[in-house]
Every structure is written in structure tokens, then in C-alpha cells.
């Protein structure tokens, strides 16, 4: 293997990993507050991609407006999801919440089949992302370079909200103690809704970039990236935002490198992620940056 190819794979790995990381943030934020693996989270990628397609196709909006708008709409969809599938179960056993999440995921996928149909749609990738540039002798599509940059910018914005604003403080409080949070006069349901909005907004960014990378949008397109992102969140330490992004980068790099170094096992690329999941759960369930999670009352 030459240095050039290694460099090429490194860039690909970082790019893929940043997508996992972006989606993993949503898993980790919702888990941090509700102790819930929001299995419908991956389907928001699909929701965002279709929303962007229709905003461009039917409303003929330029992508500069369609993409951010699709992200906002997906964020609102996250709030709807919480309102319909999770909020009624706030005091129910956690297993009910998990079942509701799986149900919500199936519902979204099958609704998409009914309404849109199962035939994959092409994604209108804006030409500016098609450019190919050459760095150190490696030809790279600019989308591959934009992806990690956008991820880092969104991550910094999110960290600012969580650690520097009032509502972020309330989110961190709620992640430890619901009752005490309410006793501060804080509207807990609103804090949870904002959490869902932020997580879904970022998932939408991931979904749109995913659709640009693999421009075949179908109702199940969110399933695998969703699972991978979930694994990234566990790997990074579920509940920890920075951990989720680091987990995403590691998983993306790992997947790409496995294929690059051992092309004979490339068919098992997806299995790699699940092996990582099993190993983490066996040997370090708190992940890279996670702290032991105590069950909340």
C-alpha cells in the first residue's frame, strides 16, 4: 500500500466517521436525558433526505434554503416524535419506551413506503459539491472535505448551547435528576423537546450529507447509518456528546481501513461495527469517555 492510498483512505474514513458522529450525537443526547435508545433516530436521516428532495423538487427552492429548512423541519419532526411516542410514556417502565421507539421507527419507514413508494429516488446534489480537487497527489471530491468541517462546526455550536446557555444548563440538570429540575421551576417537557430538536437537526445534517454521498434515497436508507451511529455513540461513551463524535470518527476510520488493508474481507465491512459493539459492551460498557450511568428515579 502506498502512502497516497493510505492518505486517500484516511480522508474517506474521517469523512464517513464525521457522518456517524453527527448522527451519534442525537442518540447520545436523548439517551443522556431519557435513558432511551431512540431507535427512530436513524429514520430521521431518511426523513431529512426526502424533505430536502421535495423542497427542491416541488417548491423549487435553491439548496441553500432547502437544506437548512429540511434540517429545521426534521428538528420539528423530532419534537413530534417525542410528543407522540415518548412523552405519554414518561412515567412508564423504560422497556415500554424502547418498544415505542422501535414501533416509531417501523411506522416512519412504512409510512414512507406508503406515501412515497419504495423505489429509490436520486438526490439532487448541488454541483458545487461535485468538484474534485487534488491534495498531495490525491483526488478528493470536495463533499468529502466539507463533511468533517460541517460536523465540527455543528458540534461546536451544540457544545456552546449545552455548556454556555441557560437551556443547556437545564439539559445537563435534567440528565441527572428530573424531579429536582422541575423543582427549579423548569418546564421539563420543553427541555426534552429542545433536546429532541437539536439531536434531530443534527441527524438531518447527517442525512442530507449521506444522501449527497450516496445519492440513492429510499425509505430504509436510515437504518444502517442509524445503527452504525448508535454503535459510535456506545463506543464513545453513551451520554457524552464529544465521545459520540470521537466514536463516530473511530468507527468510520476503522471501517474504511479494514477494507483498505484487508480487501478480502470487505464484504464483512458492516460486521466490523457490530463486532466493535460487542467488544465494547463486554469489556468497557461505558465506552471511551462515558461515566458509569446510574439509573434515574
Amino acid at each position, binding site marked *: 500500500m502506498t502512502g497516497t492510498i493510505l492518505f486517500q483512505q484516511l480522508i474517506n474514513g474521517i469523512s464517513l466517521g464525521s457522518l456517524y458522529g453527527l448522527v451519534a450525537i442525537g442518540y447520545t443526547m436523548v439517551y443522556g436525558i431519557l435513558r432511551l435508545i431512540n431507535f427512530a433516530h436513524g429514520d430521521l436521516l431518511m426523513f431529512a433526505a426526502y424533505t430536502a428532495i421535495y423542497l427542491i423538487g416541488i417548491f423549487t427552492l435553491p439548496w441553500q434554503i432547502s437544506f437548512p429548512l429540511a434540517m429545521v423541519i426534521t428538528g420539528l419532526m423530532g419534537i413530534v416524535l417525542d410528543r407522540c411516542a415518548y412523552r405519554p410514556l414518561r412515567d412508564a417502565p423504560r422497556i415500554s419506551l424502547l418498544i415505542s421507539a422501535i414501533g416509531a421507527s417501523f411506522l416512519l419507514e412504512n409510512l414512507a413506503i406508503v406515501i412515497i413508494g419504495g423505489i429509490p429516488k436520486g438526490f439532487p446534489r448541488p454541483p458545487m459539491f461535485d468538484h474534485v480537487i487534488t491534495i498531495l497527489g490525491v483526488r478528493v471530491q470536495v463533499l468529502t472535505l466539507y463533511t468533517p468541517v460541517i460536523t465540527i462546526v455543528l458540534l461546536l455550536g451544540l457544545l456552546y448551547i449545552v455548556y454556555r446557555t441557560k437551556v443547556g444548563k*437545564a439539559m445537563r*440538570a435534567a440528565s441527572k435528576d428530573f424531579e429536582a429540575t*422541575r*423543582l427549579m*421551576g*423548569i418546564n421539563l417537557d420543553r427541555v426534552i423537546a429542545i433536546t429532541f430538536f437539536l439531536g434531530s437537526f443534527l441527524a438531518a445534517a447527517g442525512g442530507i450529507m449521506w444522501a449527497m454521498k450516496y445519492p440513492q434515497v429510499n425509505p430504509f436508507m436510515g437504518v444502517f447509518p442509524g445503527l452504525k451511529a448508535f454503535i459510535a455513540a456506545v463506543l464513545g461513551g453513551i451520554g457524552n456528546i464529544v465521545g459520540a463524535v470521537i466514536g463516530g470518527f473511530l468507527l468510520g476510520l476503522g471501517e474504511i481501513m479494514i477494507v483498505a488493508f484487508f480487501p478480502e474481507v470487505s464484504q464483512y465491512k458492516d460486521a466490523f461495527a457490530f463486532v466493535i459493539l460487542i467488544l465494547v459492551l463486554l469489556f468497557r460498557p461505558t465506552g471511551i469517555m462515558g461515566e458509569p450511568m446510574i439509573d434515574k428515579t
Partner: protein
Amino acid sequence: MLKVENLQVYYGGIHALKGIHISVEKGQIVTLIGANGAGKSTTLRAIVGLVRPRSGSVKFLGNETTRLSTHQIIKQGIGIAPEGRRVFPNLTVLENLELGAYNTGGKDLEVSLDWVYTLFPRLKERHKQLAGTLSGGEQQMLALGRALMSRPDLVLLDEPSLGLAPLIVEEVFNTIQTINRQGATILLVEQNAMAALHVANYAYVLETGSVTLEGPGQQLLQDERVRKAYLGED
């Protein structure tokens, strides 16, 4: 200021509060004493809407609050230091205090912060420290300070002396009297009947979900039954 009438609370099949009447007047320290499980904490939880009473009413400043949600009740002007302190361990002392003033903004926040730091200089020294790293006594001070940050008309204190060394307990009760002199009305739930009765203007004794005795604090201190049951005298 606070009027609780005929409050009935059930936990599943258990009749936890059997028609409680309590009244707190402005400027007073009122205490609820009684053994473990008598319903003291349940009464507080019902007042702030964490448990839903089956019947009865809670009025705060003349407004019915019985059916409001917790954050709405708190916003009317109540500050609470819950049982077990419940400080946010992953937040700094300062952040904990700021959350206590979640619904008050800007300039008022600085004023409240100054006030709380004057009452508890220790909190000022440790304002950057994570609350989870404080000692038990310091956490109790933080819980008290946090309850005061919104400058509430009524302060609810649930077992503030629980698990603290005698010296710290004394300090806590001194502070309760200080903030009362500065204008806060206080409803104090305590197992430490002796200390509570000493500072209270008025007291209620709870037994298995009912008020069995009430009267001015000093008077209950002299009461034969109270002395026997709660002050450990024969």
C-alpha cells in the same frame, strides 16, 4: 400565604394523607414534624405538584395551585430545598445556583447571588467546583442557597438537617432563622423535632397521614405527648 385544605393522597392502595389542613401565614416559620412515613414529605410533594392529590386543595397567595404542574407552581414564588438535597452533581456550585433562578433574569440574578453568597460564604469560595464534590453540609447549604435564588415568597425545606453533624445542624437552623428575619416565610419539614420546634412560630404534628396536634412551637415543646413521642423523654 399557603393554605392546604383536606388534602387526600393515595399511593396505589395506600392512603398516605388523610385530609391534611395546614396554613402558613406570611413571615412565619411553620414546621411539620412527625416520624418517618407520617406523610411530611408527601405533603410537601403534593404542595409542589409532584404527587397529585385525590381531593382537597392547595392555595398559594390566594390562587388555587392544586392542578398546576410543578414548574408553574414554583414560578408563583416558591423555592424548595428537597429531601436529600438533590443538588446537580455534574454542575458547578454557581450553575446550581443559577438554575435556582431559572425564571428570574439578568440583574436580579446578581443581587440574589450576592445575598446567597453573604449567607453562605463557603459557596462563594467553591463556586467553580462541581457540586458533587462538596461535603454533605456544603451540599445542604447549596440546596438552601439554590432555593433562595428566585427570592421566593415561600421557602419549603425538607429535612435540611438529615445526615449532618450536630454543629452543622445548628448552623443550618441559624441560617433558617436569619433568612426568616430577612423576610422569607418558611415551611420546614423535620424529623429533628426539638430543633424545629425551637425555631417555629407554629407547628403541626403528623401521624400516619393526619395532623394529630398543632399549636405554637413553644407550646408544643411543653406538651406532654410531644415530649414523650418526639423528644425522647419518659
